């Protein structure tokens, strides 16, 4: 009893110290015939320093058991899959189970090489819209004189949330790499693009992809905020390229396992401009209101205010009536608040949605909405007739008639009968 309590306490303490928002239990699946773990010691040590719990399973060993779920619960939060020879992985994990792992919120970092990309990983990546080159197709660039590999400048980086270089002169070194073609999906996060002059071809010289249409590192941000990243070359992460790629590799694992690019909201509020809430005075058409929403970003250690200039608010009833860029208002230690400023509700009544749907490639997806009715004007809330200039003429007429009527009655009852003689002539034909 005491032992299990201590284990639970230690597990909780490990999770509490974890720098990734979701969890740090990480499984590394590799093939010892292809990958020597010592070659990636810098990467793994860097992860251990960030409080990751790493379990290693080599699928080359027939007897090794590999389970991603216990019942319906994930055993691991993160999964790293290194190149695996032939169909060895199929015996342990299927493409469907990788997809289930992602659907359950698990993050996956898949590494392939021109020599090996196991079917489950390929099927899983294809489901996401990432199509790595077939076996033995590798990236070639004859314009790079070094026979060891290909250098890619910072202009090849495509997402600043994954990695924003400090030095624009920085180069990344990639050797023996597969190349992927991407589907046209908004969930995909291109990270490193192939050089313009490169191409990927196989033994038969068939071209797989050419120029900047090929990608070497790609991310995927699912709607449930689970992340997947694919790297076309295991050497990209290895110690031998640590000097050139070390920071990018570290930032890539940080992004994939939700240490960075993670934002959240603490909530939203909207009210009349004088602060009266909807509950106190339900909105009616043309009311002046304002809307505020807070955002916070995980910096690897704590939540801090999230700064952005492209957060938008939408007021929708089927279609948006308003789409406003939010402006920063106030902030505290954790949250940055954004506001629409004052705006008038539409002159249409109905059931409207107050919504902030902030989705950006490389950031976790945040969506908050509130459905509220906007009523039409009551009968006594329209402008009165005397406020309308046209009506003043008619009002004058009404009061003129009233005045004349009262005067006529007074005249009629107060005046005595008088007889006036008129000269009449009988008309004789």
């Amino acid at each position: 009893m005491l032992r299990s309590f201590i284990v639970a306490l230690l597990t909780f303490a490990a999770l509490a110290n974890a720098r990734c928002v979701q969890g740090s239990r990480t499984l590394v699946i590799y093939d010892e015939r292809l990958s020597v773990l010592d070659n990636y010691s810098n990467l793994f040590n860097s992860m251990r320093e960030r409080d990751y719990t790493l379990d290693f399973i080599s699928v080359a060993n027939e007897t090794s058991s590999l389970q991603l779920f216990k019942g319906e619960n994930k055993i691991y939060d993160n999964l790293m899959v290194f190149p695996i020879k032939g169909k060895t992985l199929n015996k342990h994990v299927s493409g469907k189970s990788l997809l289930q792992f992602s659907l359950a919120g698990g993050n996956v970092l898949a590494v392939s090489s021109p020599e090996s990309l196991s079917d489950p990983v390929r099927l899983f990546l294809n489901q996401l819209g990432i199509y790595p080159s077939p076996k033995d197709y590798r990236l070639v660039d004859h314009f790079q004189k070094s026979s060891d590999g290909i250098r890619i400048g910072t202009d090849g980086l495509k997402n600043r949330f994954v990695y924003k270089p400090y030095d624009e002169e920085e180069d990344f070194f990639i050797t023996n790499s597969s190349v992927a073609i991407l589907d046209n999906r908004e969930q995909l996060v291109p990270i490193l693009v192939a050089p313009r002059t490169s191409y990927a071809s196989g033994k038969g010289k068939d071209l797989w992809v050419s120029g900047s249409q090929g990608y070497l590192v790609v991310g995927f941000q699912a709607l449930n905020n689970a992340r997947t990243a694919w790297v076309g070359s295991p050497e990209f992460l290895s110690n031998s390229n640590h000097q050139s790629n070390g920071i990018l590799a570290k930032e890539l694992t940080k992004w994939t396992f939700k240490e960075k690019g993670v934002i959240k909201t603490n909530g939203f509020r909207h009210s009349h401009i004088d602060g009266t809430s909807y509950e106190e005075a339900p909105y009616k058409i043309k009311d002046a209101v304002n809307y505020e929403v807070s955002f916070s970003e995980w910096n690897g250690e704590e939540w801090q205010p999230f700064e952005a200039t492209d957060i938008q608010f939408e007021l929708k009833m089927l279609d948006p009536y308003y789409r406003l860029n939010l402006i920063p208002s106030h902030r505290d230690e954790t949250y940055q608040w954004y506001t629409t400023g004052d705006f008038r509700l539409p002159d249409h009544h109905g059931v409207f949605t107050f919504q902030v749907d902030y989705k950006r490639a490389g950031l976790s997806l945040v969506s908050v909405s509130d459905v509220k009715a906007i009523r039409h004007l009551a009968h006594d809330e329209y402008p009165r007739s005397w406020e309308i200039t046209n009506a003043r003429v008619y009002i004058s007429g009404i009061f003129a008639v009233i005045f004349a009527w009262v005067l006529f009655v007074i005249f009629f009852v107060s005046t005595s009968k008088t007889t006036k003689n008129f000269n009449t002539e009988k008309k004789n034909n």
Partner: protein
Amino acid sequence: MQLMRHLFALCALVYSCLALQAKNVHLTFPGSQRRGILLGDIESQTQKLEEPVQVNAQDESLELNFAVSPAEKPEQVELLVGLPERGLEVVYEPKITDNKELIMYRFSIDVSKIPKALLHYSKDDEEPISVSMILASPESDNVFVPVFDMSLTFNDEVEYTEPVRYEAKPEIRHVFNPEPKTVPWPLAQVFVFIISLVVFGLVIALMSSGALNFGNLPLNFNIVYFFAFIGSIIGFEYIFIQYYIGKSIFETLLAALYLGFPALWVGTKFLRIFKCT
């Protein structure tokens, strides 16, 4: 010194032998009467055509032909067509004819088959489409040069729908229905004045025709009924005005009820007296 000069010349000779070159490059316009353009030989230092090639119709096609000597047959021969600044490029591969003495390459660019995104952005931004040539082999002086630009001069609209991306969308602000138009207040005042004038004219006309002589005004206690009768009529008008400016119908009915009974009694009393006079 002499030795160095010879070595330098030898290196230059070897380098020039390794340098790739597209020979007799010429651009033709199949299916049209336009004359072809001879671009000459293209090497790594060759400049692109100064003037962009005009594309006058969306169904136009261009052909770029050149030859390479079999000794220096490049591994990679491609044409990049696109807008490099936007990161939009499509890669064309050649049709190769090997006739032993020369290897002939032919690239066909059918403008109608160029991706719509390229045509759209090129027309929208008035930016010519760049055509670059790649000739490359390992250990060679490779060629990657812009050859010419294509300027789209046709008037047809290029229909293109941008793919959905996670990004900020254009702002929308609700356009309110216009406020109802009303007459200017000075003009309304003119009509109000005319109405007042007509009422005043009516009073003058009544008085001038002898309709007001107060001869029938009761002189005894009955004058009280007279004033009460007139007062009840004014009272009813007052209740109506109160209703008009916002009193509820229930308050109005109650007030009318309170005034109605005495007004009926006083009115009856006064009208009986009035009948006798």
